[in-house]
């Protein structure tokens, strides 16, 4: 038996791991505008992409232009991404909505910082959770992922690209400053050890192709612009051919399809990690760097004889409802620690519907949530 190839180990920053993950996933276009604490992603891309076959790095004039360029690149068939932080994320919302409507795959990394407004530059926060879900106008589905350590930054970036391509949708990777500025040892996967998914391209002749056709998965194939499939792309509500429409039945068909293509694949999309949740009385629900504090707190609680568990959210939206409901059958208390005034605890309370007691821990002072803070609440039961 051939011995499995040893993985390359690197000592990397969270932001650096995002770049590694993106490149492994096949990203060849980065358009961005500098803003801390996300800037390293852009800087490393600026150094790496020009050395790669067809790799394009663009420093755009602002965040709005970055999103425009990324969508344009994606329309030509490339895997494209951008990275930003708080205020930049707000500016990107306009074209993020366009990407949802025109069903353009892309990855947007938002390394959150304190807000509102310019807020707390380069201090950890998790204040953009609901903005990620509802930032752009209109009713729309969105996939939001997170990562709690450097290895996950790499893995979840690959996952983000795969989901973007699979579901023809923008995917947001929501990181916090602690994760993106932590430096730790990670392993780069060998080729073949991870899945790389690329969008389905049409196989029918161009004259048969309808860019927004109803399909079994709800995801129409997408050819690169300039490949012989000439079609119209618009942010206006459109019919199956991609042309603007206001006919009620066509409007409803489009809206239902873009929701359904995300909703029906919750087994694939809603990722969580469960730690000691099988018999837990108290379950902590956390994400990002707070999940690391939470894990330590849960282990300490266990050694103190309290049956604690952790539901670590790796997908924030669509909210992993099914996994939470399972825990509600046994846990008496849910603890939701966050670096905001309670944005994810809203989702937890919505799913909980009074089954368990929900205790929140909220920090908005630009400091991390410590294990002892969480432990204290767990021990209260």
């Amino acid at each position, binding site marked *: 038996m051939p011995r499995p190839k040893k993985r390359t180990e690197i000592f990397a920053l969270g932001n650096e791991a995002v770049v590694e993950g993106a490149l492994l996933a096949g990203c060849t276009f980065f358009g961005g505008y500098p803003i801390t604490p996300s800037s390293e992603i852009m800087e490393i891309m600026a150094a790496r992409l020009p050395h790669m*076959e067809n790799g394009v790095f663009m420093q755009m004039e602002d965040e709005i232009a970055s999103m425009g*360029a990324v969508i344009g690149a994606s329309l030509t068939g490339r895997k494209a991404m951008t990275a930003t932080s708080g205020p930049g994320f707000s500016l990107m919302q306009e074209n993020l909505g366009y990407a949802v409507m025109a069903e353009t795959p892309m990855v947007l990394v938002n390394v959150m910082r304190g807000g509102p407004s310019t807020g707390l530059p380069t201090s950890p926060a998790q204040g953009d959770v609901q903005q990620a879900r509802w930032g752009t106008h209109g009713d729309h589905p969105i996939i939001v992922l997170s990562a709690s350590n450097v290895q996950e930054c790499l893995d979840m970036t690959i996952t983000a690209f795969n989901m973007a391509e699979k579901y023809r949708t923008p995917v947001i990777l929501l990181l916090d400053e602690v994760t993106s500025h932590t430096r730790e040892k990670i392993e780069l996967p060998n080729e073949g050890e991870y899945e790389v998914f690329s969008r389905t391209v049409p196989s029918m002749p161009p004259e048969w192709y309808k860019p927004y056709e109803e399909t079994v998965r709800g995801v129409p194939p997408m050819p690169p*612009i300039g490949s012989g499939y000439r*079609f119209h792309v618009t942010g206006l509500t459109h019919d199956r051919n991609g*042309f603007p429409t206001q006919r009620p039945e066509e409007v409803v068909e489009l809206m239902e399809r873009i929701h359904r293509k995300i909703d029906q694949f919750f087994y694939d999309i809603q990722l969580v990690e469960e730690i000691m949740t099988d018999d837990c009385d108290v379950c902590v629900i956390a994400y990002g760097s707070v999940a690391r504090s939470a894990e330590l707190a849960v282990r300490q609680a266990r050694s103190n004889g309290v049956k604690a568990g952790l539901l670590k959210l790796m997908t924030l939206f669509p909210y992993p409802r099914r996994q939470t409901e399972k825990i509600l059958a046994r846990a008496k208390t849910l603890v939701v620690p966050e670096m905001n005034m309670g944005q994810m605890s809203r989702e937890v309370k919505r799913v909980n519907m009074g089954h368990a007691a929900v205790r929140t821990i909220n920090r908005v002072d630009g400091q991390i949530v410590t294990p002892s803070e969480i432990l204290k609440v767990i021990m209260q039961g």
Partner: protein
Amino acid sequence: MSNITGNEIIHQYLRHNKKFPHVLCAGCGHGIVLGTLIRSIHALGIPKDDVVVVAGIGCSGRLAVYVDFNTVHTTHGRALSFATGIKMSNPKLHVIALMGDGDALSIGGNHLIHAARRNIGVTAMILNNNIYGMTGGQSSPATPEGATTMTNPYGQLDHSFDTVELAKGAGANYVARGTVFHVNRLEKIMMEALERPGFSLVEAITPCHTQFGRKNKYKSPVDMYKWLKSTAIPVERFNELPADKRVDRMPIGVFVDRGKPGYEELYYARQERFLAQAAKGGK
């Protein structure tokens, strides 16, 4: 020369089975600009599949629906940023950004400046009708001083933006202005713009009698075309005029023709050098 007419050429490039009749008012100049663009593309022999028309929002933004190219109808003011991503990702494509004056000069002003500065290989067509037409006739940065609009019932106080001077200053490779009254000249300019490397900008003055003319002493489309005829003057002749005669005259023609290579050309040339170095170093 074949003996097919201009109309027959245009019909080959329209999406007949799609969304006709179009949304434009009778007497609008936008259709003339689109016709000119189609004839230019046809004359240059550019295949339909190699053309990407990226449009903004407004009356000009809707033009993309009618032509059988790859068409992208973007967000308000952002056409050039989408166009930049497309051109950089596939430099073989002819990328044309169709924008209105409000679209390109106001909300999209930053993108226009930087597309010109970067000298990205995109042809920008600004359809300047001096007004926000589709939203109902509000002032745009190109609305002349003193003109009356829905948002300037007492007369425009803001200075009017000179697109040509802006693009020149920002470093565009090719800058020209034409009007829909001087169609042949406009067509010649467009062909040149499509052929030039780097960022080329064509400002096409096109009348909006519905929203602009009606409130500003041009009661009918004919009045507006007469205005174009009497106002526009070739830039060569304009430059010879004494200062007092220049008032109320608008120079048309080619203002800048620098011939610098486009950004994408420089980028990919450098990348090739990097790849060649790596291939050598790897052995």
